[in-house]
């Protein structure tokens, strides 16, 4: 019942689910960190902001680590080509991921303004870098990236870091950044002292508006300015994982898959619905506003993934080297075993993560942080 082609689609979906889980959970940590010096006007307010994310950011980040591990295991070529090709961009993302854990932990360990300011800005920088560069990377997927395989399936890359900063990719980066700033602000509106929450809600409504404009702009650009890719040879969904066995044509539209599967339109519709819920609910500082921004995040990521399907990583200089769902996966045994492991452990993860969120529920007030010594 689990043929290779079925497993490939399942693992494409699981990769998307991991990415979405990362964006929905750790996304608010990044958004909150990015807004730390905007929303937190004094030391106590920043203390409140950090304490809203401190108990859970580390677990949230594991979605990313797991996404990396899962792509290594299930889509090894995707992992190899993207991480080595976009070397310096990935190195910057890595730096943000290195400085974040120590930033959260070390900041409060010394009671000194300059020390805490330093780590504040480190956290702000990592909160901006990761959403921005992740978006830029996604934008580049639509443009195609300059790599090709030789007969040993050794990949060579023919571009530089600055070539990744194509205007469309930058636009995609801004879509991602505005989306996660909104999500972070919605989180703060839900979790922080009401004086800060009110300001966060106002910011969320503005960044959400910015997201809507940028997202629509990116969609129009994608429809009219960027050629899509399509498999030109016979599609063999259960064939061997060797990209060179196929032919690829460019020039079609990235919206072609939306025409083939009209239900894909549900993704952008969900994103806008989420944005509307956020606009309407976020000032009430209840969970509904946060659910709105979550839906916005889910819809945005799905809409990009759907447009690319079945492509994972198109190649601009040698289209047949492009990685697709049908020729870049692991073997059937690996996909099947990993699916089994996921089926057992993912529900457990959801279970204990929910428990932790329940234990740590409630608003972090200014009164609370003034009255307690930092425990982290």
């Amino acid at each position, binding site marked *: 019942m689990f043929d290779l082609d079925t497993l490939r689609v399942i693992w494409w979906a699981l990769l998307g689910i991991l990415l979405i889980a990362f964006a929905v959970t750790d996304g608010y940590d990044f958004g909150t960190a990015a807004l730390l010096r905007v929303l937190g006007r004094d030391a106590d307010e920043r203390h409140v902001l950090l304490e809203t994310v401190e108990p859970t950011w*580390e677990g949230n980040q594991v979605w990313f680590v797991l996404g990396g591990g899962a792509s290594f295991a*299930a889509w090894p*070529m995707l992992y190899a080509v993207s991480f080595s090709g976009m070397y310096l961009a990935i190195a910057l993302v890595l730096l943000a991921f290195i400085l974040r854990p120590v930033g959260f932990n070390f900041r409060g360990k010394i009671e000194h303004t300059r020390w805490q300011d330093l780590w504040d800005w480190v956290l702000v920088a990592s909160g901006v870098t990761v959403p921005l560069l992740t978006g830029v990377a996604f934008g580049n997927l639509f443009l195609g990236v300059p790599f090709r395989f030789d007969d040993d399936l050794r990949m060579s890359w023919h571009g530089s870091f600055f070539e990744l900063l194509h205007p469309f990719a930058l636009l995609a980066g801004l879509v991602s950044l505005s989306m996660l700033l909104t999500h972070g602000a919605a989180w703060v509106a839900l979790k922080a002292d009401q004086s800060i929450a009110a300001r966060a809600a106002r910011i969320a409504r503005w960044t959400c508006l910015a997201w809507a404009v940028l997202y629509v702009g990116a969609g129009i650009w994608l429809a009219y300015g960027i050629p899509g890719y399509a498999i030109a040879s016979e599609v063999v969904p259960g064939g061997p994982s060797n990209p060179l066995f196929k032919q690829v044509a460019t020039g079609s539209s990235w919206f072609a898959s939306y025409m083939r599967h009209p239900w894909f339109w549900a993704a952008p519709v969900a994103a806008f619905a989420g944005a509307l819920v956020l606009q309407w609910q976020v000032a009430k500082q209840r969970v509904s506003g946060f659910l709105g921004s979550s839906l916005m995040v889910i819809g945005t990521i799905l809409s990009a993934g759907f447009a690319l399907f079945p492509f994972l990583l198109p190649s601009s200089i040698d289209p047949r080297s492009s990685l697709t769902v049908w020729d870049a996966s692991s073997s059937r045994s690996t996909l099947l075993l990993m699916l089994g492991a996921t089926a057992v452990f993912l529900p457990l993860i959801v279970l204990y993560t929910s428990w932790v969120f329940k234990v*740590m529920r409630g608003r972090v007030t200014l009164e609370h942080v003034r009255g307690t010594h930092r*425990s982290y």
Partner: protein
Amino acid sequence: MIIDSDVVTLSRLQFALTALYHFLFVPLTLGLIWILAIMESVYVMTGREVWKRMTQFWGVLFGINFAMGVATGITMEFQFGMNWAYYAHYVGDVFGTPLAIEGLMAFFLEGTLIGVFFMGWTRISPVKHLLVTWFLALATSLSALWILVANAWMQNPIGSAFNPETMRMEVTSFAEVFFNPVAQAKFVHTVSAGYVLGSMFVLSISAWYLLRGRNVDFAKRSMTVAASFGLAAALSVVVLGDESGYAVSENQKMKMAAIEAMWETEPAPASFTVFGIPDVQNRTTHYALQVPWVMGLIGTRSIDKPIPGINNLVEDTKGKIDNGIRAYDAMLVLREDRNNAQAKEILAAHDKDLGYALLLKHFVEDPRKATPEDIQKAADSTIPNVPVLFWSFRIMVACGFYFIALFGYSFWLASRRRLDRNRWYLRVALCSLPLPWLAAELGWIVAEYGRQPWAIEGILPTSLGVSSVSAGQVWTSLAGFVLFYTALAVVDAVLMLKFARKGPDGLGLWPVVKRDPSLRPALED
């Protein structure tokens, strides 16, 4: 495709530096969390506040270290893709799975519960909090298990086969990969080393408090836990040494022979060279001081199995290279003609030696055109750096025996309640603090540097595993790592010292009582 040898050197250097750096923090996390779990268990069972305070105080130091471990661990995951892209493609089907399962089964639990450990003391009941600590401890050791399953496959790549259509290794049996005997030996050895390190950490810092006459009862209790746990761990790390896994495969045999600087096969049971000066040029060991039988017992757990010497292993390698060339040739035929039955048959017969043909690529563009000299050079290249392995191993083992002695003596003192009577002992305990780190890093060098020239033993030479990045890019990232890792090391050390100095009394976890350290201690409680 020409591979830039600078990229290979720089990528190896970067991987070694970042792995050794990461491994400064991992063993402390592995060991200290169990000590926290023991302390908190005593608190929950007896209800005595002091044990909660102990858990909280050592927990602060644990937290600083844990953050560093997480931060530097992400680097490792990124690096396989960034710097070792061909490796990632070539073995991701097998090697990626244990890493992903580590995330699913262990790291997720760790990452999720760590916040509750620090911020949940007042939010959940003591029993629930204890459960959180126990799950954290379990998760860290499980994490080590899966990482070592992946690593063991690099040392002893079973349960997999080459697929010419996808140009990579694919799994044939996950049971073999997961139950790799090398993985089991490595797991016990590595986590035990972590437990020793965690125990030494608590023992040394507590000894410092006793020398200063601070936190006396707090420190003695901590030392008692550390001495008991440390003694068990030190016995385990030496007796169940990683060497038990060395007999199972060819490269592991080469590693063992190199560790012993054993050039010729000795009749069983082989003797152990306690001291000697390995001479790589003349392939001999000068001034060798040997203890009969011991090596045979360590290496084969028997008295009748011989341990092959380096020269014999090199001769065996030449035969493998010949087979590898046949497999390589068949692979190229299959690339032109996917269904060539004869080529498929040849490849199936020799695919386990395919990697030996790849080894030739360092010396000749096309392995099929290798001369006997090329083959000799490739065979010789399978000898790792003998003097480095020889000495690293001996220093590590000496440390191991020293740990048994120190923890044994500590345990005896603790059971007689005399931990604070002997200032010389306390000074020695304090000064021993760096030794478990030294031993752990040397252990990594023996295991991983000793695996060279292979990334995956017999399958993929390290030099072929690199990405198609430029030397300039790797220089940039390497410079960044040196810069940021140095800064973080300084910050980490400053914070560790600051909180260790502050101590439980300075943090308000323990009453400030300055006792004259030269006086006889007060009665035990």
